[in-house]
């Protein structure tokens, strides 16, 4: 297992290199000169040229890339043009919000998605199943911003149970109780994803329940619930584990909308703002980190897959 993991990590190196190259090139193809945008309309061409030189923008693109890559390998993602701070610390500021938001979202997805998925598979065709399938369909198709606004309207403006925007750090006054700021955003993010997981668990369990070995399990005289969990769900989990990984990865992009709706100081919002500000070192840094994150999720999914299915050999 460990060997397999190490091997996989090594094979990621060329992929990562290619990805970093694409990220870099892509950002530099965005129209608009960062230096003139930063200085505003009133800047003289001389001032713009001066700043360009300072930022290294006058070098050929490939030189810029090699320099950037060299710095990245040493853990230096550059300096934010807008904040005039190291990119890494700008990202770290947003990371707390985003990581907590993602974790809480995954928590809801597991807590709601897994049991409801199992129940609707066990009771497929019943009114319970029809109600959850209908609900899942609804939540899967509702746009995130719409759901977010409705949750704010009901639970924040109407009932006053949860705050509607912002997120003070856990280190600030209020401590762990500040997590309540993330309840509505995480529910917003969780709803469509939980709906997908419910439908996926239901479909995979129905597939597995038609397999021969389930008939064998029933022939032992096992209770139907035991058959459903230990035999059907356990096998369905192999297919579902991959979806969990990709759901988590997809949260990254969905978080952009949610963080905007709820004015959360997270990475999603940082990306949007940095694009508007042409703060390309930050954009590059965030995208690079997201790429690494995706690859890590991919690796974890493969490892989970291998540990759930003994037929997958770890070569």
């Amino acid at each position, binding site marked *: 297992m460990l060997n397999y993991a190490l091997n996989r990590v090594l094979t990621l190196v060329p992929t990562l290199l290619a990805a970093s190259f694409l990220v870099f090139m892509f950002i530099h193809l965005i129209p608009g000169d960062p230096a003139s945008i930063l200085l505003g309309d009133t800047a003289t061409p001389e001032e713009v040229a001066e700043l360009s030189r300072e930022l290294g923008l006058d070098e050929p693109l490939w030189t810029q890339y090699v320099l950037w890559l060299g710095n990245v390998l040493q853990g230096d993602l550059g300096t934010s043009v807008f904040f005039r701070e190291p990119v890494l610390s700008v990202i770290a500021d947003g990371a707390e919000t985003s990581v907590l938001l993602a974790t809480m979202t995954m928590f809801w997805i597991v807590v709601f998605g897994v049991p409801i998925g199992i129940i609707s598979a066990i009771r497929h065709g019943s009114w319970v199943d029809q109600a959850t399938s209908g609900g899942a369909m609804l939540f899967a198709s509702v746009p995130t911003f719409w759901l977010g606004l409705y949750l704010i309207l009901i639970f924040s403006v109407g009932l006053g149970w949860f705050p509607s925007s912002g997120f003070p750090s856990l280190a600030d006054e209020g401590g762990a109780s500040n997590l309540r700021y993330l309840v509505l955003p995480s529910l917003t993010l969780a709803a469509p994803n939980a709906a997908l997981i419910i439908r996926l668990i239901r479909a995979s369990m129905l597939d597995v329940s038609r397999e021969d070995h389930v008939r064998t399990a029933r022939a*032992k005289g096992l209770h139907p619930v035991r058959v459903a969990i230990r035999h059907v769900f356990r096998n369905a989990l192999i297919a579902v584990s991959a979806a969990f990984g990709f759901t988590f990865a997809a949260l990254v992009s969905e978080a952009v909308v949610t963080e905007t709706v709820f004015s959360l100081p997270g990475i999603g919002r940082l990306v949007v703002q940095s694009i508007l500000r042409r703060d390309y070192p930050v954009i590059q840094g965030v995208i690079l980190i997201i790429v690494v994150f995706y690859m890590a999720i991919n690796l974890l999914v493969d490892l989970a897959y291998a540990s759930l*299915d003994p*037929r997958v050999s770890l070569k």
Partner: protein
Amino acid sequence: MALLDIRDLDLRIARGRELLPVVQGVSLAVEENETLGIVGESGCGKSLTALAIMGLLEGSVVRIAGGSVHFRGRDLLALSPDERRRVMGDQMAMIFQEPMTSLNPVYRVGDQIREAILQHRRMSRKQARDRALDLLELVRIPDPLRRIDSFPHQMSGGQRQRVMIAMALACDPKLLIADEPTTALDVTVQKEVLELMRSLQARNGMSIVLISHDLGVVSEICDKVAVMYRGKIVEQASTSTLFSNMSHPYTLGLLGSIPSTDHDVEWLDAIPGRVPTLDEAVPGCAFHPRCFAANESCRSADPSASAVSPAHIVRCHFPQGSSS
């Protein structure tokens, strides 16, 4: 009193709003320590009959529309699902036609056998593992101490079927239902598995219902034989009576299609055509379109079951070999 006594079993398949009859008026009896063979081509309703006896039709499209299944004096069809499950895997067990897919791919075979034991017996997990080890030895799996921790995909079809047999024997059942247990296996492995079942029967003192489409297999280990065609039993007798006095043209046809062992597996296609599907209505005797002896009465009237001799029942207007 017979160990298993089935009377007038009727099964129907729900298709749309219709209920298509798929097994009709099947009556069978199995005594203690006896082996009953059920033969017939594919699609004749053998598996569904077996699943109905075992209690595995629940939740499928197949309905039990009538009849009774008495096992050790109790009508299984009248039991609650909980009571039914107490019989399944304990006093009655089943093995299937598909050894490659009948074991759960994610659990070690030893754990799967242990689950069958612990479902019905009170013992520690350690004791149950020892019992699983004994069972693997009993079904002649080489190197059981290592094999007990194997996953199904690490075993051959023949070995997996042995594991299935071990699992079925976990609680010393009184009745073993074997639905084409050797059909998916190589010829040499087939022989070994049949031989194994026969020796286990002698050792454990259990009854077997052996389903096969191969009259040759059945003739080797069964005490009596029921021949099924399109959901009905068309001939039933002790094995010796059946082979000395075959009466139904379908049985004769099946005999003609026994693969001859001299020239590998060569099917003598003795019965023209195929089994009609469920929604093809056949007036009169369901076999008449394929029967060499059919005449007008076969086309108009379905023959009822009659005894050509005591304990030899035939469903045919013109039983062969008897008087005429």
